[in-house]
């Protein structure tokens, strides 16, 4: 008996629609974000993460409205990420009903933004998203670096050191995505998940690569993640949240059923 490991369905939202790139080719439409969020809420998801990948300003207004709608109907924690760059961006999302915001590139460009945000709104609502990519060769001591711009731009920053720094600066949680695994369905990068989870005092959400339910168990057991995030296995009906939870419980993982 104790704290349950969390299952977090993730909604990648572009111009008001849930989308998911499959194996980096093409974008599949997965529906209206409010309907999708309600469905996961009814299924017993522990939280919902909403990542706004909309590029335009007009689209951003749609996002705020969508977050408001979700928050008024879904009574579990809601994290909103994507394009959070200023204190004002955070304020708008929290006021729209988000419980946490996820900061990614803006933290890399200006780490003090995380400190400022945490002091202003409290560490409990500041998630730092880390996109990590393995940079070591086969046979070398494994090493991962932070990438920005959807995994295209290297920064030269060591991922484990960065995660520690972000926790130090006031991140209440780390959302770790493996850019090597994202979209592959080959499972989490357990090496970087374990390395970061062991290195930071705050909870770590594993993300990127979930293709089956065993991957979720592996993320928690071998990767020592506190929560696991997945998108496509849930969006397209391959698995439901209750199935995932039952499977995890059968493998000895404590979950909220």
């Amino acid at each position, binding site marked *: 008996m104790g704290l349950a490991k969390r299952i977090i369905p993730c909604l990648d939202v572009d111009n008001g629609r849930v989308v998911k790139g499959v194996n980096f080719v093409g974008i599949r439409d997965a529906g209206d974000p409010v309907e999708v969020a309600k469905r996961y809420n009814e299924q017993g998801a522990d939280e919902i993460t909403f990542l706004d990948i909309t590029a335009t300003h007009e689209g951003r207004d749609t996002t705020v409205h969508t977050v408001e709608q979700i928050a008024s109907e879904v*009574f579990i924690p809601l994290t909103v990420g994507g394009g959070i760059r200023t204190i004002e961006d955070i304020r708008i999302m929290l006021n729209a*009903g988000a419980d946490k915001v996820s900061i990614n590139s803006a933290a890399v460009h200006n780490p003090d933004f995380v400190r400022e945000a945490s002091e202003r709104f*409290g560490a*409990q*609502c500041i998630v730092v998203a880390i996109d990590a990519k393995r940079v070591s060769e086969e046979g070398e001591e494994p090493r991962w670096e932070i990438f920005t711009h959807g995994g295209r731009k290297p920064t030269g920053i060591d991922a484990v050191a960065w995660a520690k720094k972000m926790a130090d600066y006031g991140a209440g949680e780390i959302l770790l995505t493996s850019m090597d695994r994202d979209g592959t369905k080959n499972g989490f990068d357990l090496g970087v998940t374990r390395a970061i989870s062991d290195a930071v005092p705050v909870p770590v959400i594993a993300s990127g690569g979930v293709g089956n339910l065993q991957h979720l168990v592996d993320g928690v057991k071998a990767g020592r993640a506190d929560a696991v995030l997945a998108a496509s296995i849930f969006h397209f009906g391959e698995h439901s949240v209750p199935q995932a939870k039952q499977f995890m419980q059968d493998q000895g993982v404590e979950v909220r059923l």
Partner: protein
Amino acid sequence: MSDNRIAVIDYGMGNLHSVASALEHVGPNAEVVITSDAEVIKAADRVIFPGVGAIRDCMAEIRRLNFDQLMPEVIASGKPVLGICVGMQALMNRSAENGGVDCIGQLDGEVKFFGNELRGTDGELLKVPHMGWNQVVQTSDHPLWKGIEDGSRFYFVHSYYVSAANPKEVVGRCDYGLPFDVALSHNNLFAVQFHPEKSHTSGLQLLKNFVEWDGKA
């Protein structure tokens, strides 16, 4: 005008819309207002005292708005009052956060830090904040537990925990490396460490019970 007006006290710390929309969801006939107006709060039929963030900032705003005077008055009036998260902590005597901060003192006890060496049953180091869904043991019956199974999970996010001085006031406990008090009751006052507005069906049931509660334990 509704005969069930619920004031959600706003002292500028955090987003209160979640609490308000959850109350509207479970109490369609209730009138929910987010307010920092003392007269509106005093005139309400029920009061929610929420809070997020650091206790020093919360107490500074509470004092600036004279809510440290208002809360004892509101509680003494006998109307149902629900403290949530840092709202609960602010109702205790004192918190160890931010180097030690005196609080409102409507419930006897202290707020303590989980620490950096918190360990689970297998000796593993536990993450702080305590974030996520944990089981709440109902240590005594209470109208606000109606329809909620003992041991149900609620959503928590906090690094400091309440240690009540009076065991009679404890109605719910939880365990995270150590046992601690997560629901306190004193007459018409109920206070919880978890977030009922984020705790799905169990949380909504607790809020529904509060909306219908006559304030008698």
